């Protein structure tokens, strides 16, 4: 637990931080998203159902996985046969 800074300065600091976050998320990032190279990249990922923010394989779109997975197995008898997660 951090010790609060005394006086109204702490609220002013919070306001500055919130303004910085708002400027980046409402101004800079949407602006970047409109740049042709980045827009093309975002469109490409959207078309291919890729969520680059996924933390674990279970969060990915099942369409990204080969179906059935057996075609990737050297010996099909070893395959789990589970297909998509």
């Amino acid at each position, binding site marked *: *637990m*951090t*010790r*609060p*800074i005394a006086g109204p300065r*702490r*609220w002013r*600091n*919070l306001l500055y*931080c*919130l303004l910085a*976050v708002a400027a980046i*998320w*409402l101004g800079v*990032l*949407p602006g*970047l*998203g409109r740049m042709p190279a*980045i827009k093309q*990249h*975002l469109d*490409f*990922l959207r078309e*291919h159902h*890729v*969520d*680059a*923010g*996924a*933390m*674990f*394989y*279970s*969060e*990915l779109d099942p369409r*990204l*996985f*080969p179906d059935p*997975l057996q*075609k*990737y*197995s*050297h*010996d099909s008898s*070893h*395959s*789990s046969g*589970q297909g998509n*997660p």
Partner: protein
Amino acid sequence: MAIWVAGALLLVAYCSIQAVSPDVGQKGAAAASFLKPWLKLPGTWNSNPADAFQSGKPEARQSVWPALAATGLLLLIPFAVASGIMGRGSGRFLPAFFVLWLLAVLAFVLSSQEVIRQYNLEYVLWGLLVGMIISNTIGTPSFLRPALCGEFYIKTGLVLLGAEILLGRLLALGLPGICIAWIVTPIVLISTFLFGQKVLKISSPSLNMVISADMSVCGVSAAIATGAACKAKKEELSFAIGLSLAFTAVMMVVQPLVIRAVGMDERIAGAWIGGTIDSTGAVAAAGEMVGPLAGEVAVVVKMIQNILIGVVAFGVAVYWTTVVERGGSTAQPSLMEIWRRFPKFILGFVAASIVFSMLAENSSSGAALAEATVSVTKQLRTWLFCLAFVCIGLETNFRTLAPYFSGGKPLVLYVVGQSLNLTLTLLMAWLMFGVLFREAVAP
């Protein structure tokens, strides 16, 4: 307690499926949970954050607030009960949890901005930021204290994550996948850890281990699991995750460019990407940028690596309790002592993985049940990790992070470990898909 709460949530998720799917048990069964529509995260948005709170097709947009509230309620109940049992008082927990939930919603909204999301800057980072802005400006209000139990949320989330680790999927790519993910990864993990301890002489073995694991296994999820297994400090976990996400954002753009420039075979490229880029989502993005075949191989290799985190977390917990925590003492700790030190949630994590793997392998209906249960618990797990990182942020002072940036040893550790990872994985990918199993994956 984390095992009990996670067990209760798994049971609720499982029961919610049986209640609505009378056809479960037939061949090709499909199962669904009535809870799933009620468990949502804020959606992706570009320039207007209000879009994050709408879902569905443009002609039938629906607010996600009811689902966000339902998710919060589903988590609030077991944690309020647990708080009461642990003597913290459920009454004071409720308002604290409500504010924490609001901060987690804010973190999700920040993370779901389209540019941020597609460059793999995950919600845990923004959970930390939201918490740290508050703690380092106005200070963390004391009324939040009853709900500030980040470790509890992480451990519960990890037990839920165990249910997503379906061991049958290990063999999804046959022997080549095993060799790439299960031979190279442990070699890189152990070598990097030893390099950090013996050569760089990093003073904190837990920081060394968390960086080694997130770099060699699968990024943030591996960092969270190993961090909890080796009882890493919250600052160490935050630092390791920040380092991993920063490198991942660069690698997911640069690696496909290098692959295209040298004209690498798609199978080898996919295996190389899957085995080296830390984060799962970034692997999918980088693989697709190379080509569809590379994308498929990359996500399967990363999936096999994801499954490795159960083994890694268990191994790290055993090593820590039997070797690291023994310190300089040459005497073997007794079994009772090992049991006392052992992080018990790891057992819940492994047990969930085994139970759900058996369920998924049992029959088609079992697989459908496991999948439907996980579709519920993965949302809860995501919320728990976000709540945990908001808590960590609320308890972190910028000054306590400063020592990790000085000296540059963690950075050197990451760069050296990742260089070894890139080299060995490329070598193994070439050996598997270029020499030994050339026909294993038909282009």
